[in-house]
């Protein structure tokens, strides 16, 4: 279906453009402004050029939180995507039980992020929380407020709890769009379970899975509230991911220049990855 050329369509896009530009460009310019200036208070600013950028790019602290961020994002993608697909494949395809599954599974998605953090904060406590108490009862020495590994485990488990359902919903929707005749044909051909998955289900889910990966990448890359409420970035700096470090620098230490430079580097990185994904999606649609 060929789209018609019509430059008047701009008028239909204009309201969206206006409202998003107000929210995006003005604050972004403010951040750019901070990133090249220094202040000693009283709203007096000095031009500093690229000093903050060089400082951030060479600081061990930034590298460390960036590393933690990539490790976190990578881990949750590796767990959530296959798990989400597996659950979508095994859950009832339609009828009453499918609705029950959908409603229960979507529940964590609609809990405010600070409540998620607070909830897990108590749930994982070794003395009064079910998870912490249970793990210790099973013989594990587990205390996420003291041990960095336990803190990591808790943050990852919380994210899996919180977001796997999004992957399930998307994958389930992809599976629903498969006509029953495909399955019947596969049955007649005597196709194995794996062949059905590989040649019928996976291709149909390709598009929704790209979206799931893209959304999970973006959201996990800017995660802030849940780990902040759960561990506060600790113990020590063990779970200080990029956003937490950024807010610490900006509001905790009032290093506006450093924080702004970090924000811009951070934003450019997400932009790059998303551009890659976007290009892949658009290529896929052309085929």
């Amino acid at each position, binding site marked *: 279906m060929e789209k018609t050329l019509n430059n008047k369509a701009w008028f239909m896009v204009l309201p969206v453009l206006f409202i998003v530009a107000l929210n995006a460009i003005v604050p972004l310019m403010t951040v750019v402004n901070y990133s090249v200036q220094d202040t000693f208070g009283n709203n007096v600013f000095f031009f500093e050029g690229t000093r903050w950028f060089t400082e951030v790019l060479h600081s061990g602290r930034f590298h460390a939180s960036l590393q933690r961020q990539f490790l976190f994002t990578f881990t949750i993608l590796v767990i959530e995507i296959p798990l989400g697909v597996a659950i979508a494949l095994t859950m009832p395809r339609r009828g009453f039980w499918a609705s029950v599954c959908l409603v229960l599974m979507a*529940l964590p998605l*609609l809990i405010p992020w600070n409540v998620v953090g607070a909830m897990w904060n108590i749930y994982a406590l070794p003395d009064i929380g079910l998870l912490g108490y249970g793990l210790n009862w099973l013989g594990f020495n587990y205390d996420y407020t003291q041990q960095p590994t336990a803190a990591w485990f808790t943050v990852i488990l919380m994210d899996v709890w919180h977001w796997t359902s999004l992957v399930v919903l998307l994958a389930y929707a992809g599976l629903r769009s498969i006509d029953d005749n495909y399955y019947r044909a596969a049955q007649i051909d005597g196709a194995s379970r794996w062949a059905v998955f590989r040649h019928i289900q996976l291709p149909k889910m390709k598009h929704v899975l790209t979206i799931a990966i893209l959304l999970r990448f973006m959201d996990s890359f800017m995660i802030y509230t849940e780990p902040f409420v759960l561990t506060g970035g600790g113990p020590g700096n063990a779970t200080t991911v990029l956003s937490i470090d950024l807010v610490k620098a900006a509001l905790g230490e009032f290093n506006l220049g450093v924080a702004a430079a970090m924000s811009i580097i951070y934003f450019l990185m997400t932009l790059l990855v998303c551009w890659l994904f976007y290009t892949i999606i658009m290529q896929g649609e052309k085929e």
Partner: protein
Amino acid sequence: MRLHRWLVPTLYIIFLMLPIYWLLNMSFKTTNEILGGFSWFPANFTIASYVKILTDPTWYNGYINSIIYVGLNTVISVSFALPAAYAFSRYRFLGDKHLFFWLLTNRMAPPAVFALPFLQLYSALGLFDSHLAVALAHCLFNIPLAVWILEGFISGVPREIDETAYLDGYSFPRFFTKIFMPLIGSGIGVTAFFCFMFSWVELLLAKTLTSVEAKPIAAVMTRTASTSGYELGLLAAAGVLTIIPGAIVIYFVRNYIAKGFAMGRV
């Protein structure tokens, strides 16, 4: 084989429900009992925490504020995104692809980056501490998402319908509201669901942009946690109550979620 099929979703749902059960369990205990030790059920069942929240205006106003700005944001996002999504789906125009990508990039902007500049911007506009400020700020990530989802749905409707309507003498606004919007009804439902969801759960910006008049429930919760010691029972009850609006919304759109995703390109 049949047992095995049920096993995975059942285990997953148990895994999802356990923390929620724990919250519910705590909300019916007194703070002393919670701190006293581990127990599966409340020994002295009490609804005092819920009574306190539902009768104290500083508490329940937090819920009302949150619902007002979330509703406002959903209405703004969907109504602004509809014509734009139509334009992206039906027409080619100068810079359309770049514009679409630029919109999407805003969905990726980390709120932590924008918190401080947003505070300055909305203070300058005189909107600080109003529901409108939060509703507009949440448009940053909800409008791109709404355009993205709606564009998929609109592209699923054949162009011939538009053309037939014009031949029948419908004007564009009349065609759009009378014929087109009912056609993509489930798409609008799914979009509204996602806007509601992302606006309801986002709190960093909502907290930054408000102080008294439009304070969201999350801010009320953190303030209580710091001033009156650690009222765990009260916090747990407040947490349970934040889950309820979401649960109601899911219940209403449960059939659309699957159908909607499958129809649109999302």
